[in-house]
């Protein structure tokens, strides 16, 4: 039973990995990676790592992949350019050479546990209670450093991705925003502070005047600024 589960999960994981590398559309690549991550979580469960499997599904396949999908939708890089460089051939050759080398290292290893089915473990191996206890006792420093790293990465991402003034051509033109017509009683700030009285707007609306209701005059705008 566990052997069958292992082979199903391993084959799905490897197919997902190949899909990430070969699929042309980045959105499909992200979906293939989600497939791969869920299969990998099944492998973690077979290795008695329950908390790692749960974190894999929740953090990776949930949060990180949603971030990827949003960025793919924002960037919209659907068309991959055809590569004509030498890495096109050298890349797969390097991957195959690396695989052969690692398999040789694995087959020639003196590690006795590699043929076994794992050491004996205590009840509750890998469950949240044990992992949490270890994080707050033996590995407290790594835990704190990880939290600091997350904070630094969040601030760094905000600084990198923020909108900088003057760098883009399509900066928002505030004059065009002011000139867009707004119907009366749609909750504009001008109505709220009483700059435009409501009766005035009603008269304008009934009179069929095509004057823009929400737009302040230019003199007012310049006074404010």
């Amino acid at each position, binding site marked *: 039973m*566990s*052997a069958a589960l*292992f082979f199903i999960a*391993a084959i799905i994981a*490897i197919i997902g*990995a190949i899909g*990430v*590398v070969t699929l042309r559309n*980045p959105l499909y690549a*992200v979906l293939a*990676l989600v497939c*791969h991550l869920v299969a*990998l979580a099944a*492998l*973690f469960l077979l*290795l008695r790592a329950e*908390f*790692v499997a749960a*974190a*894999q599904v929740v*953090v*990776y396949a949930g949060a990180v992949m949603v*971030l*990827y999908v949003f*960025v793919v939708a924002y*960037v919209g*890089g659907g068309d*991959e350019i055809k*590569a004509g460089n030498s*890495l*096109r051939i*050298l*890349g797969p050759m*390097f*991957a*195959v050479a*690396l*695989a052969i080398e690692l*398999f040789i290292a694995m087959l020639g290893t003196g590690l006795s*546990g590699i*043929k*076994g*089915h*794992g*050491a004996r*473990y205590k009840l509750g*191996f*890998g469950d949240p209670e044990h*992992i949490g206890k*270890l994080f707050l006792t033996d590995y407290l420093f790594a835990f704190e450093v*990880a939290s600091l790293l*997350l904070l630094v*990465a*969040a601030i760094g*991402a905000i*600084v*990198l*991705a923020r909108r900088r003034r003057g*760098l*883009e051509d399509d900066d928002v033109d505030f004059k065009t925003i002011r000139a867009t017509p707004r119907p009366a009683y749609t909750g504009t700030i001008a109505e709220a502070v009483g700059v435009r009285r409501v009766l005035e707007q009603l008269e304008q609306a009934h009179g069929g005047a095509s004057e823009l209701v929400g737009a302040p005059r230019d003199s007012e705008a310049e006074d404010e600024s």
Partner: protein
Amino acid sequence: MALGWYLAVSVLIFCIGSGGVLVRRNPLVILLCLELMLNAGNLALVTFARMHGGEAGQIFALIVMVVAACEVTVGLGLIVAISRRNLPIDVDELHELNG
């Protein structure tokens, strides 16, 4: 299952990921391939934890996941900044740091 099989899967996923990093030119897909390599490392760590009978390898795997999340955040922020400036999303075109 003998634990060597898990290591074999880990080796295959790592090699697929490293080949993808070298071949693909879209930085988004390169980040995805980096995720593949980190996950292969995670699988090996969890396998060794099972082999050893201790939970230290699982702690390692969780820390690797945190680092991967940070790397993804910063990398995607860079990609958003690149696309804001209408630069090509292609690592062969992006070989200058100035600006």
